[in-house]
């Protein structure tokens, strides 16, 4: 909810800081908890912003469902690092959102936004992944 206030040079683009919570949950507690955390945050944020079951809610939900599912599959392969998973989460989240927008507005034209959003998901995924890694290192140090 704070993210839209942050100054980003590209209009409409968010850093995806909320993904950090899902990634930490994945690393500490596993896939099921990541699903629970990610779905809860979409529900709670939609309730707080008064957009539950509105267009924004369905767009967020599709992004979260697709990204969480695919990241869980990548995690199970044990091949990807936390930062790699974060980049994947950011990219798949954008893909899921665009797919839902295409369905809602019955406009295939919206697919034109997918490549720029995927390009932007790489630096934002790197950032959120690095932040999640830093948070995890501190959490483990405190244990």
């Amino acid at each position, binding site marked *: 909810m704070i993210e839209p206030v942050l100054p980003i040079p590209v209009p409409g683009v968010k850093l995806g800081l909320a993904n950090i919570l899902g990634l930490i949950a994945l690393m500490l507690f596993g896939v099921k908890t990541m699903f629970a955390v990610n779905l809860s945050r979409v529900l709670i944020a939609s309730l707080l912003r008064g957009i539950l079951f509105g267009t924004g809610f369905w767009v967020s939900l599709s992004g979260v469902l697709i990204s969480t599912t695919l990241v869980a599959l990548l995690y199970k392969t044990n*091949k*990807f*690092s*936390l*930062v*790699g998973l974060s*980049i*994947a989460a950011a*990219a798949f989240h954008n893909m899921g959102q665009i797919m839902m927008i295409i369905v809602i507005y*019955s*406009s*295939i*034209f919206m*697919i*034109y936004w*997918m*490549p*720029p959003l*995927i*390009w932007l*998901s*790489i630096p934002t995924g790197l950032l959120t*992944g*690095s932040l999640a*890694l830093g948070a995890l290192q501190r959490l483990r140090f405190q244990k």
Partner: protein
Amino acid sequence: MKKLNRYDQWLVVILIVGSTLLYGSLSWLINAANSGQRIAIVSYKDQEVLRIDMSINDTYVVQGTLGEVYIEVQDQKIRVERETSPYNLCSIQGWVSSSMVPITCLPNHILIVIVAPQEGDTDFEVK
């Protein structure tokens, strides 16, 4: 980049290459759709009400929900010249020449889309 292992790097490469190929294909489709003779389809409440030949400079009037909508064509570009609506967003949108950019006048329920006229050669289905 020390945090990225070999598989992460491959993922990044696949994302960049895949999205660039998609972007290139879409741009090629747009250029193909924008070349040659084109028409603009004007719909009111999802019903086609007018077909405009984009090669003829002229002004057209269609009836929208809140009043008359004036559409102008000039040099293969189209715009809503004026209309009655709360914010006049579709006339503010200005000239459009790409088939990927529809003009949507929501309060008047008017949609204008540029397409190629050949039958069976439609790049996109517009609903």
